[in-house]
């Protein structure tokens, strides 16, 4: 039985410069903190519901510093795609 594939959106907060385009395109998932930096699910990453995947891809493409990434992951698997710590 293969795992269901889901999409995970992640902010590379080191790259991020607080332009805020992502929050403008995807307010359902991304808000801005008091200093203009993206908040995703209270942190820096979240699963993306299927109906928002298209918008998430546009948000990823529009980030001026390529700080947003959308990766496919197997449901319930460790997110190894971003090699984060």
């Amino acid at each position, binding site marked *: 039985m293969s795992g269901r594939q889901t999409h995970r959106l992640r902010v590379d907060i080191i790259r991020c410069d607080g332009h805020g385009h992502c929050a403008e395109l995807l307010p359902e998932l991304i808000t801005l903190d008091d200093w203009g*930096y993206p908040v995703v699910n209270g942190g820096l990453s979240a699963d993306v519901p299927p109906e928002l995947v298209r918008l998430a891809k546009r948000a990823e493409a529009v980030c001026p510093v390529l700080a947003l990434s959308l990766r496919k992951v197997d449901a319930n698997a460790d997110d190894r795609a971003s090699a984060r*710590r």
Partner: protein
Amino acid sequence: MTVLPLDVATPETTALATLPRLLAGVTPGQRVTLHQHLDRHGPMPTHRGRRAHPLLGQLASSGLRGRGGAGFPTTTKWDAVTNSALRPVVVANGAEGEPASAKDRCLLRHNPHLVLDGAQIAGHALRARRVVIWVHAGGAPTIAAVEAALSERAAAGIDRLPIELVVAPEHFLSGEKTALVRGINGGPAIPSGVRVSERGVDARPTLVQNVETLAHVALLARYGIPWFRSVGTTAEPGTMLATVFGAVGAPGVHEIELGVRLGDVIRQAGGLTQDVAAYLLGGYHGTWVSPNAVDLAMTHGDMRGAGAALGAGLVVALPAGTCGLHETARVMTYLAEASAQQCGPCMFGLPAIAGAVDELAAGVASADTVARLERWTAQVTRRGGCGHPDGAVRFLHSALATFKDDVAMHQAGRPCRPATPVLPTRREVLPL
């Protein structure tokens, strides 16, 4: 601010079966030479042949955990760098960016060969391509001691893989594992967010191990598992180095068994010289606890269960006349200035938080100061490129809980008068 004579505290002992272990044979102010080291401990164990190094299996059974602050099982860290076909790099982390901690500099100045043995043994067991020691830990005297030890080893030809010394810059985050990898790779020593066990120094799987952890490895490899586990607890065996200062009779670096009570540590450090307002445990990413917490056991597990943190073994006894809020405000400002300035939530959030804590400490807090603190601490948590914001928030929350009564007084506009600062926010204060 008072200059503290933080040196190694070494009770007399002859049997290695008890304590001290890392500090056995150490005379305060003197470095153990290679000759003395080999006299006491014998030659470094070597392993030849193609079978897996015996230490890899021993490490799992030993129960050794890292001594850099996180207390992560050492065996798990070593396993993590063996998954790749690429030969890994071993880094001994002697940055000691924590201003109040002196244990790593003490170990490196007095007993560097234990650390260097451990690094060499790890390099050998893991078939490392390079072994590096990353040092600041008090600067020139520490670096000189490591250089002298490396010269002795080179002259004796005992290191199959020469250990490279790389000097770390002096700042709080220079010991963060992704920062040191970036520094060794020739970049700035600030965090990068990569998974170093996969892609670290020279883009190789990298094992980053605190210098004290490697010193324990050097002894474990010689004396074996039953010996190693003969002190400490079942879950967390062995000894650890604790930096103890404040209202104690014998401030210094003390070697203790894991699992002893906080009260035992205070007794070993000469007992209290006056009433205490609170204890700071772990470091500046650690936690304040009440003066009644003397029964807390010195293990990561027990501390975590009590909402506290063992961290890198810091124990500060805050004198009763010193306001914990003032101390906290000073440290929060230091932590804000220590930001690598890469991530918005940290570089803007921590100064905002520190400013609000300053208002509280000065007794000029407005009605919404605490609400702002709660809002901002929630906004920076889990949103940094490293653990710095989370650690700072943990420290702050423990202060607000432990100094609850002071907070109420300060909020009511009746702050304590500032007293002589106790917690160092500049390196020079600990003259080791």
